[in-house]
């Protein structure tokens, strides 16, 4: 009698130690994302066929760029669209391994359209999982080649049109027309029944490779609740009601039973000879960083960092907006992870009276830290005599530096007292205006109505700004 338990597959790491930040429990995907379901189906199949330790997962660029955080197998992370090319190389050098190419629709159907066609046409003995959610999820919901006619995305705000963008591309249809692929199926992750069908297709695709049958391609219609602006259950419903019209399910090709197993030869160059072939020296040629000069005439170099959702990027945009109205040169660049919700984010803001050479802030004279990881990470980069503004209602440590102006501001608490924690960034804006001379409070108050178009939002934001301004002036004296 064996106990039947469905639980986390052994093909996953217990905790995701490769994932940066404090959250090692969860995947980086948004709640309800179809990627996780497909990951589970693949992991289960790898364990059931006993090939986990013999497998190499080739990740793409896109939301699933971090497959190596999760699969306790061999991992590769390839350049955008190039997973089938990398998988080809891996499979040819290690013919006994099970090589899986895992790609999204932007990766496979757009930038990697060429790679996948030729890998399929050559009949590489790999298994390709093509996650089709009809959108570029990671970069913020732009139109993909698979976007449906009429579907609204950030780059097709009135819906995709036939005249302008053409029909969505059917990769399963195209690949099934080639002679070499042995198995092409389109499945979906939309309900219990379809997930079960997808499970069978995943197993078949991996089984084909175990039996050395050749190229298998499984297209998976999957949800993107964030990109589609829906809840997870609504997104599953949308696949069934809308996506299926353009992407009919089914086995497009299956000749696995008719083909003989491939005999794969290992033909590789010994690894120590590789650098010579590539023309590389043993030692890298460095360059002297002390020769580089940082422009001295930049007035303000500001780094703002915190959790995604705290408005750190917005605060940077507002500073630039206000700077422009004060006739300053401005720059703003964001830096954030691929997570659409959660994760950490920071932005670099420069305000200057002269031209700005580089928008990067490597040594800030003002650091705004909205959470503990940000304070720990960026504290060392503040110039001597610089300002560290940190939210002491969220951060339970103190800055260790003594050569800086230490400004603890309970921004989140102040914002909460005013009614919503979401305006903590406006409190910080007020503080900045209070302690520095480059932000004219009058200008800021004239710009705020431009930023907050809704009247009910404006009044509470003005209050938050005033509160911050008072606090800042107190601290400055």
């Amino acid at each position, binding site marked *: 009698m064996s*106990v*039947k338990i*469905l639980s*986390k597959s052994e093909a996953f790491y217990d905790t995701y130690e490769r994932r940066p930040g404090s959250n090692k*429990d*969860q995947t980086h995907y948004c709640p309800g*994302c179809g990627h*996780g*379901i497909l990951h589970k189906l693949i992991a289960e199949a790898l364990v059931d066929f006993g090939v986990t330790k013999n497998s190499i997962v080739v990740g793409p660029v896109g939301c699933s760029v971090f497959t190596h955080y999760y699969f306790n197998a061999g991992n590769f992370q390839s350049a955008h669209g190039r997973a089938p090319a990398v998988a080809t190389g891996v499979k040819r050098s290690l013919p006994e391994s099970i090589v899986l190419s895992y790609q999204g629709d932007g990766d496979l159907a757009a930038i990697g359209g060429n790679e996948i066609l030729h890998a399929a046409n050559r009949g590489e003995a790999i298994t390709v999982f093509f996650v089709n959610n009809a959108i570029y999820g990671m970069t913020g919901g732009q139109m993909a080649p698979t976007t449906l006619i009429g579907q609204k995305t950030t780059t097709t705000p009135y819906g995709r049109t036939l005249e302008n963008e053409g029909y969505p591309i059917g990769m399963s249809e195209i690949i099934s027309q080639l002679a070499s692929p042995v198995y092409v199926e389109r499945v979906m992750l939309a309900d219990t029944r379809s997930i079960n069908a997808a499970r069978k297709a995943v197993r078949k695709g991996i089984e084909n490779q175990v039996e050395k049958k050749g190229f298998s391609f499984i297209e998976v219609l999957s949800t993107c609740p964030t990109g589609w602006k829906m809840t*997870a259950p609504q997104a599953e419903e949308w696949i069934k009601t809308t996506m299926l019209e353009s992407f009919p399910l089914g086995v497009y090709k299956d000749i696995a039973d008719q083909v003989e197993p491939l005999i794969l030869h290992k033909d590789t160059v010994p690894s120590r000879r590789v650098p010579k072939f590539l023309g590389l020296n043993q030692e890298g040629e460095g360059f002297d960083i002390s020769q580089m000069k940082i422009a001295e005439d930049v007035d303000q170099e500001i780094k703002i960092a915190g959790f995604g959702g705290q408005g750190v990027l917005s605060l940077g945009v507002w500073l630039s907006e206000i700077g422009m109205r004060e006739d300053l040169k401005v720059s703003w660049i964001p830096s954030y992870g691929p997570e659409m919700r959660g994760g950490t984010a920071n932005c670099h803001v420069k305000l200057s009276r002269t031209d700005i050479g580089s928008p990067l802030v490597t040594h800030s004279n003002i650091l705004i830290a909205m959470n503990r990881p940000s304070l720990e990470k960026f504290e060392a980069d503040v110039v001597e005599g610089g300002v560290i503004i940190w939210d002491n209602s969220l951060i339970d440590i103190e800055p260790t530096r003594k050569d800086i102006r230490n400004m603890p501001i309970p921004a989140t608490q102040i914002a909460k007292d005013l009614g919503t924690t979401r305006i903590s960034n406006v409190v910080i804006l007020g503080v900045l205006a209070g302690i520095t001379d480059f932000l004219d409070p009058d200008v800021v108050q004239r710009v705020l109505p431009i930023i907050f178009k809704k009247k009910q939002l404006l009044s509470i934001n003005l209050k938050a700004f005033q509160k911050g301004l008072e606090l800042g002036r107190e601290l400055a004296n």
Partner: protein
Amino acid sequence: MAKSRGLVAVNVEECKGCKLCVEACPVNVLHLSESFNTHGYSPAEYEGEGCTGCGVCYYACPEPGAITVFKNWQEAQQAYICQTSNKPSQLTLVDPIQGIAECEACGQQVILSNFRALSFAE
């Protein structure tokens, strides 16, 4: 309520509260909790009884380790091997909602969603 053949245990810290399991459960024994986990999500929660052990929620869930389903809880209970003494023991369900059981041999509490820390007789 139907007889509880199976048992579902939610790993609160892995759950993101997407509600797919709640929608998928054929016997409606899952709901979203009122409380939050450390990542700020309201995790799924078992009603405490009625699980048939069908596993539909497990496959509906996008998180690799958020849901553990014991297809036949009674069998699992009796086949449990004590972690302290490494001898056959039995599990008694202490809190079906939180997924906590007690080992009869050593008396220690066992978190059922942490399946990899448990072992059962073949």
